[in-house]
């Protein structure tokens, strides 16, 4: 009965320790020399357990080798050739997943004209003129009721305000959140509120409301003045950095109960991750900084292409090394991309879908139409229902069936699929015209980056396991 290696990704920690990332279970185990030798022997071709015992007999006793083989079989790191691991099926979630997060696109208007904007730029999905420019109070309240009714038994819900520029509809935010909190109290559910803003309109009165209502804030910002003003400009072309800086400083000084994060859009012209991070984390004082490559068609001049992805990777890896040093030294580091990935690795997430869009998260357009997420809000093609009529569950089921990782043939042999699952639907739609397509343009990048995060995870598991305990 011959044995064969199953799917896994082998990686190392800081020293000589060897680890396996098992696919698709997403389990991480540390190998001893014998298990490593068994896998190395099988790398040359299929062997029987008896063969393995004989090959390794100069270093290990037969029963030790057999125990190791049994353990590797148990974890599905290897399998018998006659009984390969079962192929995953595109099954619906076993239990219905309640709606946890509703993103309200409270306005489609924005006071900035960022060159790369997916909502208004060359790759937009929704023609803004076809929808109301602002969500009204009745629609917002209906959205809140919709969230509570779809949330089932969840003890808490997340209500996120988004735009356009979210704060252009500040008046409605106030009444919507007050209503949500009132309904939440009546229903015994906690309402966790957050918003994303470009920080141009963060007046004192708005900061007062944010602090008083414990609203989480993410600021879209691209770095220091020169980096920010490349794309994040007003309609007349004037940069926004000098307007937002005092606002952000005031927010950071006063809003101490919830971490305020910066969210950076990287473009072909803005890839210096280290200097952006230093400015935002150390000089301005954001709690954390998250980076995302711009979502765009490949032919746009701000798109990140091959050489750019290489630069981006080196930048991420250098900053990740800083993150590791800080974690080992017991200092907090704000590079949230690493921290988030470490948490997913620690929990052993093996995703059937790249994100919660259309499942535990949905986006509401200004008119109350419900779509996959905020990036698709208002798109009829990606509509799942409306806050007035509820979710079209047949359509949702069809979406989930089509987008299940088991139906993404291109991903079937990739070891990074438990974490990536094909990547962002919106990115795929912009790049390939369909949410079903996996984002093949960054596969190599994702694998290299996931490997970096796994190596950091392995090093922490070896040298600072208490750091990982925070994710338990």
């Amino acid at each position, binding site marked *: 009965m011959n044995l064969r290696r199953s799917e896994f990704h082998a990686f190392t920690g800081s020293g000589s320790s060897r*680890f396996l990332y*098992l696919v698709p*279970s*997403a*389990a*991480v*185990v*540390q*190998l*001893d020399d*014998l*298990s490593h030798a068994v896998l190395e022997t099988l790398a040359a071709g299929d062997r029987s357990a008896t063969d393995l015992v004989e090959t390794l007999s100069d270093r290990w006793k037969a*029963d*030790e080798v057999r*125990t*190791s083989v*049994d*353990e*590797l079989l*148990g*974890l599905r*790191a290897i399998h018998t050739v006659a009984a390969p691991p079962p192929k995953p099926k595109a099954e619906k979630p076993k239990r219905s997943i309640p709606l946890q997060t509703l993103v309200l696109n409270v306005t489609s208007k924005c006071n900035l004209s960022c060159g790369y904007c997916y909502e208004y730029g060359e790759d937009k999905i929704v023609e803004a003129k076809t929808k109301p420019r602002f969500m009204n109070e009745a629609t917002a309240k209906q959205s809140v009721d919709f969230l509570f009714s779809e949330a089932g038994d969840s003890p808490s819900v997340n209500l996120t305000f988004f735009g356009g520029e979210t704060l252009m509809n500040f008046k409605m935010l106030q009444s919507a959140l007050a209503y949500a909190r009132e309904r939440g109290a009546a229903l015994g559910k906690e309402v966790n509120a957050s918003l994303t803003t470009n920080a141009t309109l963060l007046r004192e009165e708005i900061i007062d409301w944010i602090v008083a209502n414990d609203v989480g804030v993410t600021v879209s910002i691209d770095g220091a003045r020169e980096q920010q003003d490349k794309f994040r400009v007003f309609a007349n072309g004037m940069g926004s950095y000098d307007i937002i800086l005092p606002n952000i400083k005031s927010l950071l000084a006063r809003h101490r109960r919830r971490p305020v994060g910066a969210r950076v859009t990287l473009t072909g012209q803005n890839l210096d991750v280290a200097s952006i991070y230093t400015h935002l984390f150390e000089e301005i004082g954001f709690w954390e900084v998250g980076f995302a490559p711009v979502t765009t068609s490949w032919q746009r001049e701000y798109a990140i292409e091959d050489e750019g992805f290489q630069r981006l990777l080196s930048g991420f890896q250098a900053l990740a090394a800083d993150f590791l040093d800080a974690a080992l030294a017991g200092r907090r580091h704000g590079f949230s991309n690493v921290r988030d990935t470490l948490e997913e*690795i*620690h*929990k*052993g997430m*093996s995703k059937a879908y790249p994100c919660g869009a259309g499942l535990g998260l949905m986006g509401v357009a200004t008119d109350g139409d419900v779509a996959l997420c905020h990036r698709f809000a208002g798109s009829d093609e990606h509509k799942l229902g409306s806050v007035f009529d509820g979710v079209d569950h047949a359509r949702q089921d069809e979406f989930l069936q089509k987008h299940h990782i088991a139906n993404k043939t291109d991903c079937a042999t990739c070891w990074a699929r438990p974490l990536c699952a094909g990547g962002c639907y919106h990115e795929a739609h912009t790049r390939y015209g369909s949410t079903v397509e996996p984002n093949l343009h960054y596969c190599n990048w994702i694998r290299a980056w996931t490997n970096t995060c796994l190596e950091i*995870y*392995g090093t922490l*598991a070896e040298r600072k396991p208490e750091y*990982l305990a925070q*994710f*338990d």
Partner: protein
Amino acid sequence: MRHLKPINQKARHIQSIIDNDVVALQQGGPAQGPHVPLGCSFVFAPGWEVDSNGGTAGLCQPVERDLFDCHLTCFWPAHVPDLYNHAPDWTAKCASAQKDWRKIDLIFP
């Protein structure tokens, strides 16, 4: 696990499943609650094959019971003839295995 160390939550979860699974006795076996063998015994402990003194006088069950129990409850038919086709009356004279086992004759195909 002796040669693999679970590191993340998923690995620990899988280990807990494996630990509660059926494993070969050579591996020492998992920690379990009381084990009640049904039909035949797969533990070589006093009580079945031998009694606590190493003899057969004080077995938990008469050995003759195995004649029926093995092929009826465990479907282990090797030591009995084909009762359905070839020798349906093989045990006709054996009302009680403990008393009448001598009445069961040899069967020649």
